[in-house]
């Protein structure tokens, strides 16, 4: 057997092993989702086998306006807080990249602080600090959006910073400057289009964190602005099948949002390669 044929066979074996390994990991990750889904389809499951099959949980959920409202609120919370954080960070990072690089360390320190904050401490701190101040900040909704903006700060910061470093944003701005372009315009026209992928990926992570939060939403807004996690908690005592159905739908919604963003990202990438 020639060396080339051997190498090709080794390559095929490695490729097959990699596929098997990935399939096992995917299966492992899907187990909780699939079992929750199966559980949500049965009437009673107190014995070895369930007593019957039903779509009742889903029918009840889909006809429940409160459920849809809580999904909608959660999406609004995700989009608005993540969007605010992205805009604030992009402006701040412009200053770091194009005006004063030394501020980068201070930015990093500030943006890492929320990692150390537990949800309970953050929510109680915000409530005790702003309640009764008579300003717009004492509004519970403003508090909630503000809290999520802080919560997702480190994740989005890291994504934007890594993307900026990967394209050497400072050098690109300088190159654009030498072609008669102002710094901010260069940041918008040259740098931002090249870090969109990084922003999208980090915002996905941030979105899933906001989607999964219960503590901040419950402590700060409670039933005034019920998100999906608070809705889940409120319905947990009613029926375990219903709770499972809610969890399945949370999975699907997060999955749909993720798939949409990734699709958009790969579409941008493809058109660039062509």
């Amino acid at each position: 057997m020639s060396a080339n044929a051997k190498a090709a066979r080794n390559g095929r074996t490695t490729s097959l092993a990699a596929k098997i390994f990935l399939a096992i990991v995917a299966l492992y990750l899907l187990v909780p989702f699939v079992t929750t889904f199966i559980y949500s389809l049965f009437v009673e499951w107190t014995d070895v086998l369930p007593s019957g099959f039903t779509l009742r949980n889903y029918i009840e959920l889909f006809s429940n306006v409160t459920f849809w409202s809580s999904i909608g609120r959660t999406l609004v919370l995700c989009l608005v807080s993540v969007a605010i954080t992205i805009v604030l960070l992009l402006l701040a990072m412009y200053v770091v990249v194009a005006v004063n690089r030394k501020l980068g360390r201070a930015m990093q320190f500030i943006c890492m602080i929320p990692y150390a904050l537990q949800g309970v401490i953050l929510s109680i701190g915000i409530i005790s600090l702003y309640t009764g101040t008579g300003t717009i900040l004492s509004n519970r909704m403003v508090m909630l959006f503000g809290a999520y903006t802080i919560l997702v700060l480190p994740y989005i910061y890291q994504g934007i910073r890594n993307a900026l470093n990967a394209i050497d944003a400072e050098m690109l701005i300088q190159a654009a400057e030498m072609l008669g372009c102002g710094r901010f315009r260069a940041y918008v026209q040259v740098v931002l289009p090249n870090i969109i992928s990084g922003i999208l990926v980090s915002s996905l992570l941030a979105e899933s964190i906001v989607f999964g939060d219960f503590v901040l939403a419950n402590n700060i807004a409670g039933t005034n602005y019920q998100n999906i996690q608070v809705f889940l908690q409120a319905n947990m005592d009613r029926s375990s099948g219903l709770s499972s159905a809610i969890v399945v739908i949370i999975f699907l919604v997060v999955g749909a949002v993720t798939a949409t963003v990734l699709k958009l990202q790969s579409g941008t990438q493809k058109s660039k390669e062509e």
Partner: protein
Amino acid sequence: MSYIEFHDVVKRFGDNTVLDHISFGIEKGDLVTLLGPSGCGKSTLLRCLSGLEQVSEGSILLDGADITDVPASKRNIGMVFQQYSLFPNMNVEQNIAFGLKMQKVPQDVIDRKVREAIDMVELTGKEKAYPANLSGGQQQRAALARSIVTEPAVLLLDEPLSAIDAKLRRSLQARIREIQQELNLTTIFVTHDQDEAMVMSDVIQLFHAGRIEQAGTPVEVYTKPVSEFAASFIGSYNQLARDEFQAMTGASVPAGHVVAVRPETIAITADSPADVAGCHVVRGTVAGSTPRGNVLRYTVRVGAVTLRVDALFRSFHMFEPGQDVYLAIPEHDCLFIPAGALRDAA
């Protein structure tokens, strides 16, 4: 008055003085090379001229106008960076058109100029390619086209060829020089490669530790180094202390000077040379040899002194290590240079 003038330019980063009272002029249409080892301040001076760095003291004049405080985007200076710095989200055509769009040039003029620039740097067929799909040489040519298409007053090249392989590098050196002469474009080229500086420049400004060590045409700088640093950085001169040279040749050397001799000026023979008029003839032993393209560099020991001697690489006429040889050193090629503190350049 020169086209570009640096007046007593000082640049400090904290306590570190990178440019130490630099003053010189550049004539219109010249290609001037700022040559020197890493960290000598040559790129910093280029960046001060571009406006990407502000000078700490002094002033810079371009065509009679003081541009010291003018923002980089308003100086009409083109620059090619070492890392190419093409915009990854734009194809070759869009990259080249970027500067023209900033100048609000009409679209039909942009199209024509972009086409001409692409032809000039020989990138025809790559108009729609993105930087990620171009080789290093193609990226550098696209960057060059992007910089010259706006017809800048000055073109700055910051070590643009340092990441490119030797063969392509030589062809790009020639192409850049051709384009520069064709457009009569005043160009400043930064490099640490003395061969590159020799090939491309009208004038070389040799930098050392934030100061200009020597300025002149490539031939002047090569044949008449004014300091030990210049001699060691340009041309691999043999540098001999006064005592060493006097002991080796018996000739006298002015006090406070060292002697610099270029390796290629020394003739190496197996037998005592017949015509020794105007030469110091010494006997030595070959210690080793290194092929350097068409030249063979011998290391020859003459007493306590080791000399580098270059000879044309003829495979039928080589000296073996341990072989006794005669060296004829022309007297007029022995340069007496004021002794400085530094003996070796980077």
